[in-house]
């Protein structure tokens, strides 16, 4: 830990008043019009604000859990932190290599063998070829799929693909790990292996973790943040946030039943 000069570790993720608007065009015609005639003030698109106002900080070695209902903006927030999409307003500052486990298997080519997919996946995550080759045995061992490594991916079971994907993500020397509900894959033994690996990673690495399971959250995270409709509804210790979230879920479930009865 580089905690020799500062009493607290440095901030590695800082977000201030983040907001993200998606531009929705009714037809491709409007896109063309926007290119030639439109302006910010007089647009041909409608804005959908997936995130409205999010501010938080994460220090090195800390872990932050994020909960919220479907469509509340969790994934958009993670994509912004990874740099996959750009916030419309506000500030984001991220230091260090990010490993997005939410991209599990996004780069997979089902016709290619596991070996080739490791090379492509590693390259997409920013590794040089010689780095991937150096880690190849470790990845094979972690994935634990044996001789299937030389078979095309279309022959894999879903669990085997996820094992391979997690094995790649676990070996790119990331400083910030971003996990989006990916742990529910794999059998119990592999889940335990992943959780053990994450525990180990957390000793110095920073973790952003999205889950609907408050139990997983309280095991892996120190603090939590509850996002509702693009805003932070509650932030603080995992226990408090999880309690508030659970309570609200019951209330809202009741509401939904009431509305559907009408």
């Amino acid at each position, binding site marked *: 830990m580089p905690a020799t000069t500062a009493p607290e570790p440095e901030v590695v993720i800082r977000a201030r008043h983040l907001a993200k608007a998606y531009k929705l065009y009714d037809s491709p015609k409007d*896109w063309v019009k926007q290119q030639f005639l439109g302006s910010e003030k007089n647009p041909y698109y409608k804005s959908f604000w997936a995130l409205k106002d999010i501010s938080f900080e994460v220090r090195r070695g800390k872990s932050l859990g994020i909960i919220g209902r479907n469509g509340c903006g969790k994934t958009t927030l993670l994509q912004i932190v990874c740099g*996959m*999409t*750009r916030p419309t307003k506000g500030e984001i500052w991220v230091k260090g290599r990010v490993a997005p486990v939410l991209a599990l298997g*996004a780069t997979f080519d089902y016709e290619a063998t596991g070996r080739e997919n490791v090379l492509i996946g590693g390259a*997409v995550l920013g590794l040089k070829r010689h780095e991937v080759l150096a880690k190849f045995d470790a990845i094979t061992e972690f994935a634990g799929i044996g001789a299937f490594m030389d078979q095309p991916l279309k022959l894999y079971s879903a669990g085997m693909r996820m094992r391979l994907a997690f094995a790649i993500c676990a070996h790119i020397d990331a*400083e910030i790990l971003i996990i989006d509900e990916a742990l529910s894959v794999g059998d119990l033994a592999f889940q335990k292996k992943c959780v053990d690996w994450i525990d180990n990673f957390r000793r*110095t690495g920073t973790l952003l973790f999205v889950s609907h399971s408050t139990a997983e959250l309280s095991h892996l995270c120190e603090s939590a943040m509850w996002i509702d409709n693009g805003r932070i509804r509650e932030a603080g210790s995992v226990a408090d946030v999880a309690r508030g979230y659970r309570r609200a879920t019951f209330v809202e479930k009741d509401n939904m039943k009431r509305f559907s009865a009408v």
Partner: protein
Amino acid sequence: MTNLNNRQLPDARIMHIVDGRTVDPKDYNWLQRVVRFLLRPFTESWHHRDLIAAILRRELRERFSGSMAGWVWAVVAPVISLVTYTIVFDGAVKLPNNAESKSSIDYALFVFGGLVAFNFFTEMAYRAPSLLHEYAHYIKQTMFPAEMLPIISTLRATTYATIGLVLMLLCQLIFAGSLHWTVLLLPLWFIPFLAFLIGITWLLSAMGAFTRDTAYLMMTIAPVLMFATPVFYSHETLSPDARFWMYALNVLTGFIEIIRDLVVFGKIPNGLVIAWTLFISMFFFWFGYWFFRRQQDAIADVI
């Protein structure tokens, strides 16, 4: 696997975005910004060279995967077309500019030279509009540098164009007995042509991400372009007026004339044509790059 825990990266990467704009750690004046922009395509592709190689390798393998003959097809197809032109045009047509025909294969080579360049162009033009859709899951779910895709797909097409070019030189060598020394200047033709194609692909793929019409547009104009381009004839058979407009409107004309001059006729191309072609390729290269970068954030959201 655990060694990352006690490792500090010396050059930790920093991403800093305020109100949708990336904040540079340093302030640059406008001249530095222009130079940085002009150099950017090269520095970026050098930075991503391993990624480019990995994806390119996959694409090349994919092209003939599942076929037994594989790469043989890439060679057989141009051989067949070359043989066809030789048989069909043997003795029937004189070289349009009255250059002395040394052998019956001269016209075939003349057409083939045009086709190598034209097919290279159409392969890019057909694929570009759907290129980003093919890689949508990369762009949306990983930190994939989408601006590298047009470079990768141009490099892929380059391998086939190179096969055609080598074949053309071989025929010249076998049937005419020798190559013109101007063949050595071919790299000077190839590099601007590549830049032109990469630029076109940046442009078309960014447009194709937003509207499928780009694909239909290319499918509609490419066959017309084949006849509006001096593939089967020479621009020298046209009136001077028509010749001027052909150069001005059809950017492929210059490239095709130059490759024929170098390989078939063995003469140095007209300086004006060279200058115009160079200008075209540089313009499309940087304009395409600029356009792609401008749309890039929106692309990740719409695709």
